[in-house]
């Protein structure tokens, strides 16, 4: 009979579902089934058991082939790479625990690195906007219990956060939302007729990239002022109706995603989305929450917030933290040839950066710490596989609403494999030796 591990936390997206159950083989070594998870989360658990998984570090040879090396050799290469570089880029940090992020920061501080997390291609615009104008926010628990007007703006949780709607935002019966989805009005703002939009009470299919105009129009409508016949392709009647519905609710929440942060306007789109939320608070209770992607990208911003005062785009080259997105951000640094080594942990810029940035990574001394084979590992000089956080080792992660949750270890990693934290500790020790630091 299978052994069931309960209350497992899913280490895929920022929803951090904490109700998974994992069935293990009798000896507790093999994952047989994953219950309650979405298909992506279940795949993550099951893929950790893949027979073709890389379990030892590999160094790229001159002819392009890979040669297996020991973890000690990998630590030596990584430490030397960081110490020898004048301005290394240490990127990623979103698919690992807060403890590992803290250890990485210590290394970054000693070697004078530029440190950035995946927010730089995700919700970095959001962080800039929040610093500019503040944010009226709420936890997902409050939203499940209270929100009767739910807006998904430029996000598609049916695909990107598959259990978000069923656990927190649309379907759950909360204390004040006893009829579940029937208690709520659901709005989707998206240029595509997405699977989320198909479920909505109202779909505003705006012209791509015109988020700022439509948000501005909602502010105008909330003030009862005149609008042109169409804004962003949406008829003014629908905008007035939307503003009225949002205003008349008891609790309105705006969830927003990459459609807002990636389109031109970027942080300004979010500035005005926050302004709409603030306006709604003149009439009712309203909050705005970014749909964070990686399961601990929020934690990375939190850890760096405690340590350095800034959530991403850290420049530690002068021995103290400087922060200037556009200058100290990964893609800008790479495109401008301003870094001379690249260290990647807990993300995959090879797949998710514009190709011009990836070309620069390929030209530099580079190390990729990742359980998977990825486009980043393919262009790096050294690939160090590590245990899966949330599957093979526990650790703290922050949910998209900034609630910290302790992930659980379910199975042992393959024999002899290090965790992120163990690998970073070894690199930190060696970096201290090379630098002559205590």
């Amino acid at each position: 009979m299978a052994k069931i591990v309960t209350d497992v936390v899913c280490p895929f997206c920022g929803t951090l579902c904490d109700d998974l159950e994992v069935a293990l083989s009798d000896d507790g070594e093999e994952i047989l089934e994953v219950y309650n998870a979405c298909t992506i989360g279940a795949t993550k658990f099951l893929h950790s058991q893949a027979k073709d998984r890389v379990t030892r570090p590999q160094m790229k040879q001159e002819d392009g082939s890979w040669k297996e090396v020991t973890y000690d050799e990998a630590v030596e290469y990584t430490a030397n790479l960081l110490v020898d570089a004048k301005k290394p880029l240490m990127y990623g940090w979103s698919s690992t625990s807060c403890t590992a992020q803290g250890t990485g920061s210590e290394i970054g501080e000693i070697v004078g690195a530029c440190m950035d997390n995946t927010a730089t291609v995700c919700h970095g615009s959001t962080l800039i906007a929040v610093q500019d104008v503040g944010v009226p926010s709420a936890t997902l628990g409050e939203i499940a219990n209270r929100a009767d007007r739910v807006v998904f703006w430029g996000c598609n949780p049916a695909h990107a956060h598959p259990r978000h709607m069923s656990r927190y935002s649309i379907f759950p019966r909360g204390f004040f939302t006893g009829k579940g989805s029937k208690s709520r009005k659901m709005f989707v703002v998206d240029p595509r007729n997405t699977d989320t939009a198909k479920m909505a009470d109202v779909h505003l299919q705006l012209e791509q990239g015109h988020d700022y105009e439509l948000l501005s129009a909602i502010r105008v409508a909330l003030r009862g002022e005149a609008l042109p016949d169409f804004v962003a392709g949406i008829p003014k009647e629908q905008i007035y109706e939307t503003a009225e519905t949002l205003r008349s609710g008891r609790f309105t929440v705006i969830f927003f995603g990459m459609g807002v942060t990636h389109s031109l306007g970027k942080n300004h789109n979010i500035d005005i989305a926050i302004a709409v939320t603030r306006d709604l608070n003149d009439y009712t209770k309203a909050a705005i929450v970014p749909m964070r992607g990686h399961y601990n990208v929020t934690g990375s911003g939190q850890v760096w917030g405690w340590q350095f005062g800034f959530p991403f785009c850290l420049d530690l080259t002068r021995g103290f933290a400087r922060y200037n997105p556009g200058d100290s951000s990964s893609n800008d640094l790479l495109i401008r040839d301003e870094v001379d080594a690249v260290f990647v942990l807990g993300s995959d810029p090879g797949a998710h950066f514009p190709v011009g940035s990836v070309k620069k990574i390929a030209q530099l001394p580079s190390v990729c710490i990742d359980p998977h084979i990825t486009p980043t590992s393919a262009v790096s000089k050294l690939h160090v596989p590590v245990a899966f956080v949330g599957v093979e080792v526990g650790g703290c992660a922050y949910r998209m609403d900034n609630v910290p949750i302790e992930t659980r270890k379910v199975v042992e990693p393959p024999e002899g494999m290090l965790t992120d934290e163990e690998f970073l500790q070894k690199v930190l020790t060696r970096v201290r030796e090379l630098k002559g630091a205590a």
Partner: protein
Amino acid sequence: MAAIQINLISGRTIQQGVSMENGKEKLAYRDACGILELDDAEFKRLGCFKNTNVRVSSEFGSVVVKAIGATQGPHPGLGWIPMGPWANAVVNPNTYSTGMPTFKGTPVTVDVAEDEVVLDAIALITEECL
């Protein structure tokens, strides 16, 4: 067969997420992300059937993907490539001093490339970068 101009956006799909977690070196990842979703009207303008390989080009690069019918449409004038190395071969890398590349809203040209193959992620990134 004509070339058409469309506005390109990218983002997550559930197939992209599953295939990503199952191994980006596998062909399933290419099949999930090495695609371009177009509306029927765009196929008529392009003069080809669905499931034809096409070349997507912008001022920032070009890539061969398979053109398929829009699964979450209609979205006239828009093309959709799930996030991944195929989309990133053509997106606008400019951050305009925000740190954030302009992943959405890239003007692209699409033309039929029946005889060209859609590379897997590792082959694509290796060809582009090494």
